[in-house]
């Protein structure tokens, strides 16, 4: 009951003209960037971070949460109309959604994804209200060793579970951790990896890293791939659904929600796995499985619900533990830190108004998104006709302005360019962006917790494995890391016994296999590995 009371208070705070305006702005920007492939909510939040330093923290978070939710809606529009996922979470939607659009059922596909997103987002946010306080009360009892272990799980999960290959994932994570180490060590006061450059002593600001990797990296990548044929306009019409479509959609919506929320809440969650699982389930349960691959509405409804539910789920670890499970959440955490707020279980206790207003704004933003997306889908599709030079000129302008605004020193602009080149390299070689960003943001925190627990135990390594939570975490890490070895051993064994190893598991892992919101362009064609 306490939660509901808090939530109602939150609604009271969010229902001011200014906050509603900011929520509307957030969901509008979010939908727009979701629609545009390659420009995701993570990049947008990073670009807007310096701009929002003038706002109250609550309002900034309302804006960011709106962008986050809006991106999930917008991404499906591009997936369905263009077969180019606007967002890594919509990779699966493209499989059936684009087939539906080609068969002249774009309106129904857009409708089922918008309504499904709304239902899943609302249920997911309700679950967030119910679950988060429980997680917080559990998390308050955790000590430094447990936190360290949970963060390690997040590292391993983000690197190994998502993305096209483990090696790429871990490489990206290590780059991120290395960037996170730069600066003065908080415990001993020594300078690390600064190479005598005075400007590096404070470390590299997260804004510069995020903007460099997401915005400049993406702009360079697009500049290197300029000559592409334009697509034709697919007539959209006003989204609507017939009775038959409703009947076929509502179960996938609920099942997708059931997949999405828990996966979003796990430290190695993200939206890619639940959308993929939802797609597989719908294909299995479908009354007319032969329709799959030719535009089955279930294949759009399920994954779209799953990705919005997972967006809600993502906020559980973010608000309760201070753990980001996707790139947008990671940058929102950086924003919290920028306001001098400490993310973690104490956030709810110290800033209850902020947390509950944010959650209330999610309900309102979700409703706004339904209104914005259902009748206006054709208008959003028009955004795709903006010439790329205009778009990326704007992005680069915002990127340099943001990076310069952080410390007002030109040095940051050089850093921005260098990180942009790094981001380009990541895309060129198919490295996922998410582990890098998580490494940069979570790395210093993990180091702090790790060293704190070592100080508590007087330098004994045994101090790191205190408590059952840590045991479970290390067990999970061991399983994730040893899993491929087990596979390898099994394959070697079956090869020796002469049995033909047909290996349907070869394509295992996360289907679309895409990390980070900005990186999906390079890897998006891999979604076709889902053979109908």
């Amino acid at each position, binding site marked *: 009951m306490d939660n509901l009371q808090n939530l109602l208070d939150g609604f009271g705070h969010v229902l001011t003209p200014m906050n509603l305006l900011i929520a509307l702005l957030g969901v509008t920007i979010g939908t727009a960037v979701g629609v*545009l*492939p390659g420009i995701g909510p993570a990049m947008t939040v990073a670009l807007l971070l310096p701009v929002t330093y003038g706002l109250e923290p609550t309002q900034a978070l309302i804006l960011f949460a709106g962008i986050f939710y809006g991106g999930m809606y917008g991404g499906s529009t591009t997936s369905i109309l*263009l077969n*180019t996922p606007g967002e890594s979470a919509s990779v699966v939607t493209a499989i059936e959604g684009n087939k539906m659009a080609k068969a002249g059922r774009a309106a129904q596909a857009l409708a089922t994804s918008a309504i499904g997103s709304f239902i899943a987002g609302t249920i997911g946010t309700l679950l967030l209200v119910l679950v988060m306080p429980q997680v917080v009360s559990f998390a308050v009892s955790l000590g430094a060793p447990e936190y360290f272990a949970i963060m390690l799980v997040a590292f391993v999960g983000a690197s190994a579970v998502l993305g096209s290959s483990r090696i790429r994932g871990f490489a990206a994570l290590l780059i991120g951790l290395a960037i996170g180490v730069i600066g003065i060590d908080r415990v001993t006061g020594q300078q690390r990896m600064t190479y005598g450059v005075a400007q590096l002593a404070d470390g590299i600001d997260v804004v510069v890293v995020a903007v460099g990797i997401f915005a400049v990296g993406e702009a360079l990548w697009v500049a290197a791939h*300029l*000559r*592409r*044929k*334009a*697509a*034709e*306009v697919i007539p959209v019409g006003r989204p609507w659904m017939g009775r038959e479509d409703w009947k076929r959609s509502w179960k996938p919506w609920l099942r997708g929600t059931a997949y999405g929320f828990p996966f979003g809440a796990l430290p190695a969650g993200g939206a890619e796995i639940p959308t993929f699982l939802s797609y597989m389930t719908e294909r299995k349960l479908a009354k007319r499985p032969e329709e799959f691959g030719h535009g089955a509405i279930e294949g759009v409804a399920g994954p779209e619900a799953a990705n919005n539910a997972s967006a809600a789920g993502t906020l559980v670890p973010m608000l309760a533990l201070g753990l980001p499970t996707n790139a947008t959440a990671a940058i929102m955490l950086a924003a919290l830190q920028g306001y001098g707020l400490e993310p973690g279980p104490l956030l709810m206790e110290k800033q209850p108004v902020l947390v509950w207003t944010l959650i209330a704004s999610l309900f309102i933003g979700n409703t706004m998104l339904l209104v914005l997306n259902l009748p206006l889908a054709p208008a959003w*599709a028009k955004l*795709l*006709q*903006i*010439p*790329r*030079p205009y778009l990326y000129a704007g992005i680069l302008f915002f990127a340099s302005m943001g990076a310069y605004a952080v410390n007002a020193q030109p040095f940051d602009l050089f850093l921005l360019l260098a990180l942009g080149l790094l981001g380009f390299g990541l895309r060129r070689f198919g490295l996922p962006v998410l582990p890098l960003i998580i490494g940069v943001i979570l790395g210093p925190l993990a180091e702090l917790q790790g060293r704190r627990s070592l100080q508590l135990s007087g330098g004994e390594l045994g101090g790191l494995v205190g408590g059952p939570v840590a045991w479970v975490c290390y067990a999970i890490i061991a399983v994730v890391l040893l899993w491929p070895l087990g596979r390898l051993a099994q394959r070697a064994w079956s090869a020796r016994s002469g049995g033909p190893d047909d290996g349907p598991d070869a394509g295992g892992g996360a289907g679309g296999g895409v990390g980070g919101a900005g990186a999906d362009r390079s890897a998006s064609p891999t979604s076709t590995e889902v053979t109908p």
Partner: protein
Amino acid sequence: MTILVGYIPTPQGEAALTAAIAEAKAHDESVLVINMSRDDKLVDAHRAPEADLGRLDEELSESGVPHEVRRIEHGTDPADQILDAIETERPRMLVIGIRHRSPVGKLLLGSTAQRLLLDATCPVLAVKAD
């Protein structure tokens, strides 16, 4: 001689094509249809769908004029592309469809029709949709 048509899948484009066919029939000339789609956009509303180009081809065959349908996929400015084509093909006449534009719209986006009218080295026939 040939008659060059700048075609886009709109009523104006259709009107231009009809006018060009009539011109070609009257003077026993051939028709060259050009559809330009910009490569710096993800989606270009002026790109004629494959089915559209097929229909054009049929219409032209039925009318009995010698013809060619060409699509230009690269470049960022349709006016440039058509002016280039005028240089290389040396048509007797260019046919385009025109429509009303607001001053602000012209200021922001420019007007392809205006550039063609002023810069083309051959006579330009500008037609309006009914």
